[in-house]
């Protein structure tokens, strides 16, 4: 057991988790922006944008994240020579953020749409009756309430995103799951303890997000 604790002197577990958190942070912001734009497209009066939004959600919701990640690395970087940064590691980090954002934007869009479903019809009617056209009505009346109704599903998307940052291992980003693999290969005798360390690390990150969003969704929900 003493040997097990000595492992943490050789391997920086906290730094690996910090990479996951950073991936989740940047991809969270990017997918929130992209997902909101897609959600507005899907409720807009312009049919071509509605179709685009629907097609986007259907395509990316049904594609494995692993393929998107592999595509970014072997396709975008390997074949098309897309480089976001001259720094090798940062480049892969950004490719991973891009993949995570593209994938989770589809789920953010669905979450916001489910939030829109919680807004009563009368709100939209009232917005129309005071003369607001589509964009102001969506921006000032519908979306603010939709976001408050969408806190819980958005929280679920965030939790999924945090867990999915491990898939960045396929883009050779040095994050937690990759470090766990290395550590287990080096010390197979304590592999269960190593796994439990990493598993509990994710439990510690994920459970507070769940509790926080559940609390926030109750606090922010519009009383009706």
């Amino acid at each position, binding site marked *: 057991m003493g040997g097990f604790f000595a492992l943490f002197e050789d391997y920086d577990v906290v730094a690996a988790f910090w990479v996951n958190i950073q991936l989740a942070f940047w991809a969270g912001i990017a997918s929130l922006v992209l997902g909101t734009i897609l959600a507005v497209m899907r409720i807009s009066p312009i049919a071509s944008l509605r179709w685009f939004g629907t097609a986007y959600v259907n395509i990316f919701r049904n594609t494995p994240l692993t393929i998107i990640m592999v595509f970014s690395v072997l396709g975008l970087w390997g074949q098309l020579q897309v480089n976001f940064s001259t720094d090798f590691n940062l480049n892969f980090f950004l490719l991973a953020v891009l993949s995570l954002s593209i994938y989770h934007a589809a789920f953010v869009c669905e979450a916001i749409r489910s939030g829109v479903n919680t807004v009563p019809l009368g709100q939209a009617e009232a917005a129309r009756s005071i003369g607001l*056209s589509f964009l102001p009505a969506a921006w000032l009346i519908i979306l603010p309430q939709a976001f408050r109704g969408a806190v819980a599903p958005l929280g679920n998307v965030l939790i999924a995103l945090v*867990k999915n940052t491990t898939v960045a291992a396929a883009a050779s980003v040095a994050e937690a799951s990759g470090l766990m693999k290395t550590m287990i*290969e080096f010390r197979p005798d304590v592999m269960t303890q190593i796994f439990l360390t990493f598993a509990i690390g994710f439990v510690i990150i994920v459970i507070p997000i769940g509790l926080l969003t559940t609390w926030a969704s109750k606090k922010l929900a519009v009383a009706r």
Partner: protein
Amino acid sequence: MSTQAVLFDVPGPKAKRRILVFNILGALLVLGILAVAVNGLAEKDQFEAAKWTPFLEWETWRFTLLPGLLATLRAAGVAVVTSIAFGLLFGFGRLSGLAPLRWVCNVVVEFFRAVPVLLMMIFLYQFFAKSTPMEASQSPFWAVVVALTLYNGSVIAELVRSGVFGLPKGQREAGLAIGLTPAQSLRSIEIPQALVAMLPALLGQFVVILKDSALGYIIGYTDLLANAQRFGAGAGNMLPALLVTALIFILINMLLTFTAQRLSRLLGARAGKLLEREDAIDPEGVEAPVR
């Protein structure tokens, strides 16, 4: 709420013209983005016929894609069956009248829902290979199956529980009123209804299982993605190979989603109400929304 009906007026002649203009602009914008992408790809010689024709040949499918697809479907299929078994077992456990059993099931379910599937897969792969008498060649397959089972089984257990909680309270009261014990009422009145109502959501979960089976690629399971990647590396057409792979996944998953939608309409109000509630309040299935 159907926002579309009121967020904008029924268009008059002027608005119709404006919408048409925006429609054309929107279509042009989308086409423009596509054109830039296509042009960029063409400049990198991605549209050479030689890169795409292999996917029209039977040999490619016979020796590369179909065996890969079969491996993917095998892992996902076994995981579907075991996940349902795991989910029912722990779902019932969470509804049990015995408090300690309920707690244990709660802890197990919450733990496996919080741990990334890939983390479990990597661990199980090493565990099966090094600490069990299992043949080394078999360990990736079982790592994929068991990891998918632990995660998706937990989600299904939660579906069972929320399905029962979503039933109208009167159902349980009626059971108790005719002299059933709480356990009997659960078994013979509540669970059968919850199971029927959760069928569409269950199909949605199969989409998640199929998608996550692609994680097996990372631990060296020779699934569809791994085969396509090897083929692409060998034939020098990585991009087309990955796109064809993605297309196969999308088609199968859209078929599953479509079936789930039909099923939820077929099951009518009961399933509809449960799903609506899930959707609006706490969509556990946001990974696989079914509507």
